[in-house]
């Protein structure tokens, strides 16, 4: 891995405003992402995990520059995304792609998939004398195992095949970073495994970096190098994948792991009673102190008053919890 990260996000925040009513001037403010900092290396996969409403998808959009942050900076190859213009901006757009849960919404139903990929190749001027846009398109389809499918329409393809097309299109644009937002959640297990394998293979071949957004920890375990666990807009724990799964420090991470319905023996009998009760609180009025305190089995007085800061637990492992004994100096921010 190169020392210089491909992408860094520093103190990213993003708020959404909702009107309460016609004459009510008070707005409902939801801090979907609140003070999130992370870095993504080359050829690395960072997974963002958490429940719906944790802000993981918004973080993905902010990282891509698809959405402007309320505050904070995203740097791609050391350049501030919000300050890029013209060619540099176009190049960064091309290098940063996104794959969605449902690729059919990102594909034109009236165009063959081959034509759609050729189109992006010519829009970005990627063809040259040696490689026509058609050659490049055929190459990209071959790589995802769909050689010869160029004349098919999106509706003629299965969900897994459409996901391959989305990957092929990103490859054709010579993407370096792909934000994958729940890319395999809608697929059957056997197909899901195929797409996960394909993503890993493409990463090894082309040195791609993935920001992998998923609620499924089982898939995350197999694809990611590092994992960031998000809760109500904040990262509460971040570590290498092995660390997260074998040595989870945050009670929320432990609860997520315990909730995974796995067929292997570990979770089968232990998790008959879930570790956490209740549901995600209203993001417009997050709890005081630690955001997880309303559902935390270890909650203490300090948790209700002081928000824990991310503290170093050694070995690239950070966690925001008072009960780990690491954040005595953390205090509120």
């Amino acid at each position, binding site marked *: 891995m190169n020392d210089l990260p491909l992408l860094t996000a520093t103190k990213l925040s993003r708020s959404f405003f909702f009107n309460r*009513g016609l004459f009510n001037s008070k707005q409902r403010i939801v801090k979907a992402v609140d003070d999130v900092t992370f870095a993504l290396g080359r050829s690395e996969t960072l997974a963002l995990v958490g429940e719906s409403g944790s802000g993981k998808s918004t973080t993905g959009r902010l990282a891509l520059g698809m959405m402007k942050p309320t505050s904070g900076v995203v740097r791609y190859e050391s350049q501030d995304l919000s300050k890029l213009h013209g060619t540099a901006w176009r190049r960064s757009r091309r290098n940063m792609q996104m794959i969605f849960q449902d690729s059919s919404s990102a594909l034109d139903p009236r165009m063959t998939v081959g034509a759609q990929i050729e189109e992006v190749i010519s829009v970005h001027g990627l063809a040259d004398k040696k490689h026509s846009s058609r050659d490049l398109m055929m190459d990209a389809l071959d790589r995802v195992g769909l050689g010869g499918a160029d004349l098919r329409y999106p509706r003629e393809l299965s969900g897994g095949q459409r996901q391959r097309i989305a990957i092929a299109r990103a490859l054709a644009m010579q993407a370096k970073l792909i934000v994958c937002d729940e890319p395999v959640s809608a697929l059957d297990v056997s197909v899901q495994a195929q797409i996960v394998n394909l993503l890993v293979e493409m990463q090894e071949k082309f040195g791609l970096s993935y920001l992998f957004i998923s609620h499924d920890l089982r898939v995350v375990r197999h694809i990611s190098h590092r994992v960031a666990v998000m809760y109500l807009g904040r990262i509460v724990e971040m570590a290498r994948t092995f660390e997260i799964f074998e040595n989870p420090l945050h009670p929320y991470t432990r609860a997520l792991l315990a909730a995974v319905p796995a067929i292997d023996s570990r979770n089968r009998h232990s998790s008959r009673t879930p570790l956490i009760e209740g549901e995600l609180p209203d993001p417009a009025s997050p709890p005081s102190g630690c955001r997880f305190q309303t559902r935390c089995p270890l909650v203490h007085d300090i948790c209700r008053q002081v928000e824990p800061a991310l503290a170093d637990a050694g070995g690239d492992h950070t966690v925001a919890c008072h009960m780990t004994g690491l954040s005595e100096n953390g205090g509120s921010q």
Partner: protein
Amino acid sequence: MNVRFLIARTLRALLTLILVVTFVFVMLRLAGDPIKMLLPEETPANVIEQYRARWGLDAPIYVQYVSYISSVLRGDFGTSFRDGRPALEVVTERIPATATLGFAGLIVALLVGLPAGIAAAMKRNSAIDRAVISFAVLGHSIPTFFFGILLILLFSMSLRWLPSSGSATWAHLLMPACTIGLWNAATIARFTRASMLDVLSKPFMRTAVANGLPLSWRILGYALPNAAIPIVTIIGLIVGQLLSGAVIVETVFAWPGIGRLTVTAVAAREVAVVQTIVFLAALTMVAANLLVDLLYGWLDPRIGSSTEGKSR
């Protein structure tokens, strides 16, 4: 129901009315000098000036506008020059006749349109469904004046069961009400069918079946309330148009309502009366829409309580 929602909708309705009144004012001024339209061409110039001064037409246009608005607010729409009575009085005395006809027509439309639409949706692709669709298409492609004349030919001329014109008894009401009613029933049936088909395919209808609820309960308690919004919208439009739609039917059946008054007033260039009718037609439409808006909030708890997302 949200009080703010109610106030907002009412204010919006008032604004619409003011715009309509302004529009009428502008159109009348654009149509040419009202004096020249009313007085004979050979009127001497000094007499014209006299009339101009008497009707305030010599003042600047904005003064005319303000005095026009203020008189409208006072309910003064000018006088009918044919019999010298206030235009408002001439028009309002016709309201009962038109309202009776419109209400009867609406009842017919609902009694025919709603069950037909529901039955068609329940038995999709069956003979009933096809019959309802044909009725909807036919009902809309036959103009009301033609259908009215057909009814007169059949029931008055051939069978001699019903009187062909006038408004003396309930028998007089039957044919014009059916003419309006069946025309509108076609629309209601079509919208009801489409809306019901949409609702019947929803997961909560399957839940209702799986819960063992009887058919009538499912239709009346579950499907119809959910299908109601488009149906209520279309009924609102129908009610709003009752006044202007009455013109043809009232003429065909010589029904002494506002529709017929419109025709005679236009022919006689009764500006004040026409103006009053336009205002009243607009008022009906605005009131019907307001009512529909309020009904929405009552029919669907999600309306009015929803917040619209805005991002910055």
